[in-house]
């Protein structure tokens, strides 16, 4: 029963939602709105679960003083501090502590982390783009054309580079992305059908 009931719920839910899509009747619309409400409620619980899991993980690390426990302590303090600022010190208006901490602490920290990527990408591009084979040379040339063609100085150096860069994005790039997109779409469709029909059961857990 522990397996049959979830499988039955999945099957009925999936089939009802497929049929519902093609029936614009009021009852069908009410069912649809009800399902949407439920989805958002479940989404809210996922957030609670996430916070719970984060707290448990870091508390455990601090308690056992595992390697890097100091960072876990900072994470927990940050969580508590933001919650207190948001709940007890005037909510989330831009002049209140919650938003001030966000603007002057979280904002520069996250922006700095992402900015470091520019340096690593520069170093990785220098080491990875080598004309080792015909295919690698094609990749190298495409990268150089797009990199130069996408910035204003490219047109100053050689004006046709902008046209070539746009052509690369509009045709070869789009063809490849569309092929991947179609593959992913068909994969999602077949996986959804397999789940609804009970062929794919890994979401139930329990190994096999």
């Amino acid at each position, binding site marked *: 029963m522990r397996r049959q009931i979830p499988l039955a719920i999945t099957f009925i839910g999936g089939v009802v939602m497929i049929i519902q899509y093609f029936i614009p009747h009021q009852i069908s619309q009410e069912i649809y709105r009800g399902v949407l409400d439920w*989805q*958002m409620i479940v989404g809210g619980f996922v957030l609670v679960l996430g916070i719970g899991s984060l707290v448990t993980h870091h508390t455990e690390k601090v308690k056992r003083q595992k390697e890097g426990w100091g960072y876990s302590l900072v994470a927990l303090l940050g969580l508590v501090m933001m919650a207190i600022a948001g709940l007890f010190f005037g909510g989330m208006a*831009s002049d209140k502590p919650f938003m001030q901490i966000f603007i002057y602490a979280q*904002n520069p920290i996250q922006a700095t982390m992402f900015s470091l990527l520019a340096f690593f990408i*520069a170093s990785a591009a*220098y080491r990875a783009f*080598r004309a080792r084979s015909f295919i690698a040379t094609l990749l190298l040339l495409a990268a150089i054309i797009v990199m130069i063609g996408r910035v*204003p100085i490219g047109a100053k150096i050689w004006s046709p580079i902008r046209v070539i860069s746009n052509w690369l994005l509009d045709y070869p790039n789009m063809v490849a992305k569309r092929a991947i997109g179609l593959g992913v779409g068909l994969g999602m469709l077949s996986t959804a059908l397999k789940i609804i029909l009970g062929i794919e059961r890994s979401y139930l857990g329990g190994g096999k």
Partner: protein
Amino acid sequence: MNIYEKMMSIDRRILFILIAVSVIIPLLKPLLLPINVTKEVRHLYEFIDSLKPGEAILLSLDYDPSTMAECHPMALGILRHCFGKGIKVMVTSLARPEGLGTAEMALTQAAREYEKKNGEDYVFLGYKPAPGAVMLSMGENFRLAFPNDYYGTSMEDIPMMRGIKNYKDLKIVITISGSGIIDTWVIYAGGRYGVPIGAGVTAVMATDYYKYLQSGQLVGLLGGLKGAAEYEKLIRHPDMATKGMDGQNMAHLLIVFFIVIGNIGYILGKRAKSTKGK
């Protein structure tokens, strides 16, 4: 180590310093090179420009501080364009909770510049988890997903929301994003409810969305800082993106220069080895 090997293995610290210098100097002393406007940016601009005062759009600011450098100027550009034309803007942030802060910053700044009033000229809906479900709910009725706005005012008490029920009452949904949430907007809001979608994304993500441009699923696309700078040029309000383009110019040139140096070293080194072997 011979000269060719040296050309192929320049110390990464030298690269890092040169990249930093190439970005900082143009910021201090701008080159102000002309920015060419691409068709995907122009299409989005023209779509918004064709709207009449009083018409409404939904702007979903689905980015957080990590991608702010590229996405924030896009958000400001679109908000300035809309506010300048008297277009009403509903703003939400569905990708991550941190996006709320950046969205509020953009909205407050643009509203202050154009003296726009909350509830009359714009509404900030805020964040709700499960973005797919929220997008579908908004397609039925905005009040299902957001009974109150971000500041806790009931939707019934917001003057701007009178006559706005769902996507049918909006002219376009625009998402500015540093994540894959655009696909969800295209599929759920565009596909199911038929509302036109426009997008702004980081430069590394832009190549993923040309397929939607060609199929007409996206009205227009702003790609990275360049897209934001193009939009600033179109609305005649040069700001952060335009200033940043000079740094990007120099950094791209420098990276290409090092790639070329590395390849010259590789090719000449290989040739020297084969000559030695003979």
